[in-house]
């Protein structure tokens, strides 16, 4: 028994891992102590763990995303340290493989995804004049399945060992023949578990946006961020089932001995790559489109102009959504399919640059002759345009099948996708968080510290990744854990850049703490002289969002309201507001799913089967839950609104 725990269950023999274990135990003890000492358990349960309020769920998503950004960032620093000099002995090859696998998986699925979903949660209902999302219970369930999926993935490095076959988890490397240990099971089940949440979120937001818009708000009068959320939800609904199936098939290969992707038994290993990228390419548009939406909002607000080419933006996103499903083979041109296959996918890949280019010109057009304010959200948006364009253009270079045979799996590729994901998604999320921060927390983030963080991040980002284009052209392959001496100068430069980039992140997080303590509180709900409906609410936003929902005439609803002097509090039209009750079921059900998944990871059916039965029991209980929510009485609305608005008049 102890033998099993020491040799197989826990990861042993690695000083860095012992350090990690010690810090996990310390942090857990600290959190439990603080919660107990300040008697916060009940507050935490009542206000956050059981909440169905989209604003609180959004905040929890964003906190989780920042935590995962820290984890993925530490992985990145460890890799860059190992690659700084030739012959470094900081990480051994196995450990290095685990680190790049968890870095990639964490950053895409547990950082970028929750960050965009978090912003969507906070902002979309406010932008369309809704009181909550269409399915508040499901929304809470989405968050908790994501959260427990992320935890399942993150415990792997101390319990059982991390997956080590790359974030793409290609077979046969990840299959049962070459990875007989349980490590890869963590990848499969963690993604499966959090994928449930993502798919449910997609459905939730599609329904919310189609069914719950304010009166008068036709589709073409929606704010552009809501449009990006709508298109993203549609892509999620069509792309994530492909991942679900692919993961399920590989799980059966690994746990039940089937032969979908194995080398033996007529399996097709490349079919995994095919299915993975059928999901994987739409996935990169899932994480970039909401960032495009954020930039559109930010640039329009801070250039003090209406968004240039609103309709062109909408159509460009629709075209991107369609094209995103027909380019996937460009991730494995070197599989060696015939000229017909590779040519077709080269052409579709280049086509995607057209709608993206349209969007770039629309942003420039929005800024043209605008009276631009250089606040921190706008700085992120301004830095995005050139940096993302470099990443995008190198993507077109990679998209040419013949040339790709040279670039494939070199650092040129690494530099490209970090160029689009950091300059696109991450800058977009930082812009969005800074922009909507006053709406979420009632105060802005400090501008001075924000600018320091911004410049460190942008400079660090370029020092890190520009050299990698050249390293790629010099022939440095990705996923190598040692470097040749002639690659040293640029690698060292890249490592220095990575630490500057990390400095930018640390200061960003410090700014959250600093601003909470010292920034002046917002007096109105309209922190940036905004244009869309979320700025029409008071700050802090009442839990029912809108006392009365205004009639919408254009995609800049609040701008119109400011001209006519209308508010979201029309005393003559008050009615009791129907709101959902908080529920403990989502977190409990997700925790049971976590236990069941953990059992499957270890092939412990005595744990997995009761776990799955527990999930089904939860579903049955939920089916017989006839709770219809409650109504907020008019007196309470009056009291809340007058208190919030009293300060203004």
């Amino acid at each position, binding site marked *: 028994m102890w033998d099993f725990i020491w040799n197989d269950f826990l990861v042993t023999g690695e000083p860095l891992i012992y350090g990690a274990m010690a810090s996990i135990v310390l942090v857990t003890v600290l959190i439990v102590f603080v919660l107990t000492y300040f008697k916060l358990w009940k507050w935490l349960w009542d206000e956050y763990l059981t909440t169905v309020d989209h604003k609180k769920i959004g905040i929890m998503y964003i906190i989780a995303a920042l935590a995962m950004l820290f984890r993925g960032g530490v992985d990145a620093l460890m890799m860059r340290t190992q690659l700084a000099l030739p012959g470094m002995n900081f990480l051994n090859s196995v450990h290095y493989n685990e680190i790049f696998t968890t870095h990639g998986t964490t950053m895409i699925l547990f950082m970028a995804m929750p960050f965009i979903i978090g912003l969507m949660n906070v902002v979309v209902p406010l932008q369309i004049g809704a009181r909550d999302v*269409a*399915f*508040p*219970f499901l929304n809470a369930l989405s968050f908790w399945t994501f959260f427990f999926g992320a935890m399942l993935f993150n415990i792997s490095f101390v319990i059982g060992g991390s997956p080590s076959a790359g974030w793409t988890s290609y077979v046969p490397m990840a299959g049962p023949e070459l990875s007989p240990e349980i490590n890869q099971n963590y990848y499969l089940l963690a993604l499966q578990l959090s994928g449930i949440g993502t798919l449910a979120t997609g459905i939730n937001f*599609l329904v919310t946006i*189609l069914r719950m818009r304010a009166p008068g708000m036709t*589709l073409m009068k929606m704010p552009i961020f809501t449009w990006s959320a709508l298109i993203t939800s*549609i892509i999620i609904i*069509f792309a994530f089932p*492909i991942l679900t199936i692919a993961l399920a098939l590989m799980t059966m290969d690994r746990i039940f001995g089937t032969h979908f992707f194995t080398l033996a038994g007529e399996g*097709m290993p*490349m*079919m995994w790559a*095919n*299915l993975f990228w*059928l999901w994987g390419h739409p996935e990169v548009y899932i994480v970039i489109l909401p960032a495009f939406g954020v930039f559109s909002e930010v640039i329009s607000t801070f250039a003090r102009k209406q968004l240039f080419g609103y309709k062109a933006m909408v159509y460009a996103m629709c075209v991107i*959504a*369609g094209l995103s*499903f*027909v380019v*996937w*083979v460009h991730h494995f041109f070197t*599989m*060696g*399919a*015939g*000229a*017909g*296959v*590779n040519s077709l996918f080269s052409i579709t890949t280049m086509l995607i640059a057209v709608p993206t280019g349209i969007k770039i010109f629309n942003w420039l057009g929005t800024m043209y002759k605008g009276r631009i304010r250089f606040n921190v959200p706008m700085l992120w948006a301004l830095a995005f345009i050139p940096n993302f364009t470099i990443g995008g253009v190198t993507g077109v270079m990679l998209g040419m099948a013949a040339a790709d045979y040279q670039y494939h799996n070199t650092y040129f590729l690494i530099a490209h996708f970090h160029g689009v994901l950091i300059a696109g998604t991450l800058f977009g999320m930082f812009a969005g968080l800074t922009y909507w921060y006053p709406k979420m927390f009632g105060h802005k983030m400090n501008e001075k510290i924000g600018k320091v963080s911004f410049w460190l991040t942008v400079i660090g980002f370029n020092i890190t990744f520009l050299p990698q284009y050249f390293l790629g052209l010099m022939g440095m392959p990705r996923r190598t854990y040692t470097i040749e001496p002639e690659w040293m100068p640029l690698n060292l430069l890249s490592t220095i850049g990575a630490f500057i980039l990390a400095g930018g992140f640390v200061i960003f997080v410090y700014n959250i703490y600093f601003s909470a303590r010292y920034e002046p509180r917002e007096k109105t709900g309209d922190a940036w002289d905004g244009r869309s409906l979320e700025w029409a609410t008071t700050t802090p936003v009442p839990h029912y969002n809108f006392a009365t929902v205004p009639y919408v005439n254009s995609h800049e609803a609040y701008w119109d309201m400011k001209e006519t002097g209308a508010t979201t509090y029309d005393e003559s039209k008050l009615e009791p507001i*129907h709101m*959902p009750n908080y529920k403990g079921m989502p977190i409990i059900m997700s925790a049971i799913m976590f236990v069941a998944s953990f059992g499957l990871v270890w092939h412990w059916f005595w744990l997995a089967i009761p776990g799955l039965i527990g999930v089904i029991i939860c579903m049955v209980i939920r089916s017989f839950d006839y*709770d*219809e*929510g409650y109504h907020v009485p008019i007196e309470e609305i009056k009291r809340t609104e007058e208190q919030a608005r009293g300060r203004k008049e």
Partner: protein
Amino acid sequence: MSEHTEHSESSIPVKHIIGFIASIVLTLVAAYTTVMSGLPVPWIIAIIMILAVIQAVLQLVMFMHIAEKNPIPQYGNILFGFFIAAVVIAGSIWVMSFGMSDMDMNGGSGEEHSDH
């Protein structure tokens, strides 16, 4: 949990139960055909594909309200769904055959994939 609770005349959702049972039966028939029937492979493939199409139509009618009058975006999404289904299935078959049907003239590596 949404603002309106829609119940038809009877409280038992007959349509959904029929759809649910029919889906299970169709799936079991497909599983039986594949695992135990012992038919030749082309027959099995044809049968399970027909069963799949029947089940897809069944679910669209019984669960997805396709027969009801829908607003425009719904039709757009349904059409997009058909497009994606076609891309995933036809695209995967084409890609995983390595596009070899176009390359009969080349010989060489085409042989091992001649059974596309």
